């Protein structure tokens, strides 16, 4: 995992957070995925302005979790999203 990269939703993904739960539609497959609360929070942080490392720091600051545990959980989560073609890693921040 390259923690300096900027994770963003894949262009083929449509998503909305509904009452704190991210509902993600994978347009390429038609699959719909609902994320758990912490997954939904990480999804909200995929704004293209934060590196993966920034996301780990935010999770550590918001939840009762060690950096090591947060890093492990975020990596596993991002890998799963990438395998589902729901996420890409950019080399540079996205200008908003």
């Amino acid at each position, binding site marked *: 995992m390259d923690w300096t990269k900027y994770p963003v939703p894949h262009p083929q993904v449509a998503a909305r957070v509904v009452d704190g739960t991210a*509902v993600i*539609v994978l347009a390429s497959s*038609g699959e719909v995925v609902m994320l758990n609360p912490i997954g939904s929070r990480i999804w909200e942080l995929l704004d293209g302005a934060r590196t993966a490392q920034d996301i780990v720091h935010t999770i550590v600051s918001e939840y009762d979790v060690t950096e090591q545990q947060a890093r492990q959980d975020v990596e596993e989560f991002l890998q799963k999203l990438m395998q589902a073609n729901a996420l890409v890693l950019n080399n540079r921040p996205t200008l908003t």
Partner: protein
Amino acid sequence: MLPNELTISIADLPITLCLEWLDQAARAKIVTRYSDFIVPAAPAEFTISIRVEPGAEFIPFGIAPSWQIRTSRQDQRIDFESHCEKGWVDYASRRGELVIRPRGSDIENFLRVLYAWLCIEHGSLLLHACGVIRHQRGYVFFGPSGNGKTTTARLSAAYTILSDDLIIIKKNQDKFIVCGTPFRGDLPEAPRTNQSAELVGVFALTKDTRHYLAPLASSEAVARLVQCVPFVMSQPQNALRVTEICIDLANHVPVQMLHFQRDTTFWEIIE
């Protein structure tokens, strides 16, 4: 003599069909099938020329278990292809064409796809669902194939069935309306009902051994609804639009899980 042009209107979205290339028998089948939805000639959302093309190639029938329908969008144009027909519509000119086999008259798959796209354009939804009007109130029972849409329609024969397979939900000011379509599922005796009613309940269907209602969190309601919107979801912008419409729907109309068994008494727990 049957007309060269026919305008049908589903959920107040008119489409004009140019039938001049079809023989009288094919025209008659189309007129009969969509009779409840035929309206006087009027400005239409799209004008579709239906053409017979001997030797035209379509998606071959293969070993795939389901009927294949392919759609794609490139700029202003949507292309459509299935086993017996293929066509396109152009958003710029608001015209389109459907090519069918000689002696064919089946235009329904094309219409289903076209209306799915039209609904998105108008902030409405074509939804895989059974629609019923009972006491002037509209109910929608949705779910994937096998979850009980046709069963629900069969068990609701005492009321007005809008469709056992595909209905349209549209928003009128702050109310949601369920509209009938001519699109049937597995219930051969299902009517093609051109009626509509204010939507008062939306139910995700689950077959069970007893009737009961279970609440659905908004997110789960949205996720389940989105999965029952056909034909348009391969385009991310459509998927996003559909998701937003479903969120709006779930915020205005109760969406619950209906566990039901095969008898008509499930209506007692709904009202």
